[in-house]
């Protein structure tokens, strides 16, 4: 399962990556999780099974959804409370639910 995160500069999402990786490892999930800035998404989206956006760049959602549709992967916003409290476990669960459905 490859989870791609994106925000304006890829900084705050990378905080989340560390927490998500820890949770995934704990659960024995085979995950690749990485964060990029919004303008790099195009170069990374081919490797992703799901694309999640930080809530502060939610204005990019329509654009990213379009990219997601072309690649056939789900795209959604990260819940802002989970984002702020850096709840890696919740975000991994959310990502899984998107991939499964």
């Amino acid at each position: 399962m490859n989870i791609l995160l994106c925000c304006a500069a890829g900084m705050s999402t990378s905080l989340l990556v560390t927490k998500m990786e820890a949770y995934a490892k704990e659960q024995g999930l085979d995950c690749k999780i990485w964060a990029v800035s919004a303008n790099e998404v195009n170069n990374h989206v081919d490797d992703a099974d799901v694309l999640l956006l930080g809530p502060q760049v939610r204005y990019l959602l329509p654009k990213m959804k379009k990219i997601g549709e072309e690649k056939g992967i789900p795209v959604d916003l990260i819940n802002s409370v989970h984002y702020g409290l850096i709840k890696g476990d919740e975000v991994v669960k959310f990502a899984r639910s998107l991939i499964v459905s």
Partner: protein
Amino acid sequence: MSKVNVFLEEKVMPVAGKIAAQRHLQALRDGIILAMPLIIIGSLFLILGFLPIPGYNEWMASIFGELWLTKLTYPVTATFDIMALVATFGIAYRLAEHYKVDPLSAGAISLSAFVLATPYFTMFTPAGTEAAIEVTGVLPIALLGSKGLFVGILIALLSTEIFRYIIKKGLVIKMPDGVPPSVSKSFIALFPAAIVIIVVWLLRLIIEMTPFESLHNIVGQLLQEPLSVFGTTLIGAIVYVLLVHLLWVCGLHGAAIIGGIMGPIMLAATDENRLALQAGTEIPNIVNMQFFEIFIHMGGSGATLMFAIMMLIFAKSQQSKQLGKLAIGPGIFNINEPIVFGAPIVMNPILMIPFILAPVVMAISTFVFMQIGFAPKATGIAVPWTTPPIIGGLLATGGDWRGGMMQAINLVIAFAIYYPFFKVWDKQNLQLEKGTEDDKTSE
């Protein structure tokens, strides 16, 4: 939801979202970023060249010779002074990427169009003479830097729009199958590129017949000057701070959104300061990119570093304490999404007040202190926005301790403004944790 929240949600958010997603502004913002790493590298050399240590100049001259500063600042020219060239390519690239036409070709074409719009001569007054003579066969480097930035932006947008239009119309030379893709790509770009070059060429010929003489003069006088005059005043700075933080309160990345519009102006203001530093003249602009990134957004937008420290030290509720631990690490490097979304500050009637008020007051204090000469102006050294406070102020002012002191003063201001609101918020959290129902008393 309070009236303020309804207003923000219904009026500010949709407009902000549209501005931020506007393709030209997005290309502008993302394209200019291409120049930023170079400018920061150039800044390292600037710092070394202008350390405010007594006797430093003489000491360097004694080791490396009289021309040490000229030689040390070679890389500065190759980074700062080609800002417009790099940005032109970057903006065209990003816009073409958005349109799904070949970005490399679009970048190369607008680079050529930008040079085509630039006068190929400069006026030079030889030593011992009065009259300036025209030197031909050169590209004036001043016009490739911040002075050419606005022309570069316009040319990049114009040429990429033409490029896209022609390709979408299908007016391209199609190569038969079997021709390697990279070859056929360059042929696809051939016709659109010719059109772009002809359009800009005609534009230059027409402008040369007018009193303006060059596109740079037109853009400078009609666009750049009025915009920078407003942008670099105290009022301009306050408007900028208000807009950025109003957007953040809505949960949107304010700096990234406003950056598309104000970024070029602030970058140009930074570069004017850099040129003054190198020339040894007075630093002109108080308000520039570092004014906001280094002196105001300490801990991130909203100057939340002190708020994070309060949570860590004074919090009584478990939630506030936890958030403090989570937020302090990134906060030192001016990243504060954990606070903005975790506290949360977004749509929070209590915390949004200091979040907006503190940076506004800090903008005023910084401006006034720099105006009266109590604190030094940022000298055009581009410090990365992730540099921790105090160090950031030192570096941005070329190693002047009063730059760090100005940041310390601003931290005290932020503390004073955040503290009462922090107390109310912490008390609310505590009451919630105790399970009491009357947690709404403070509204």
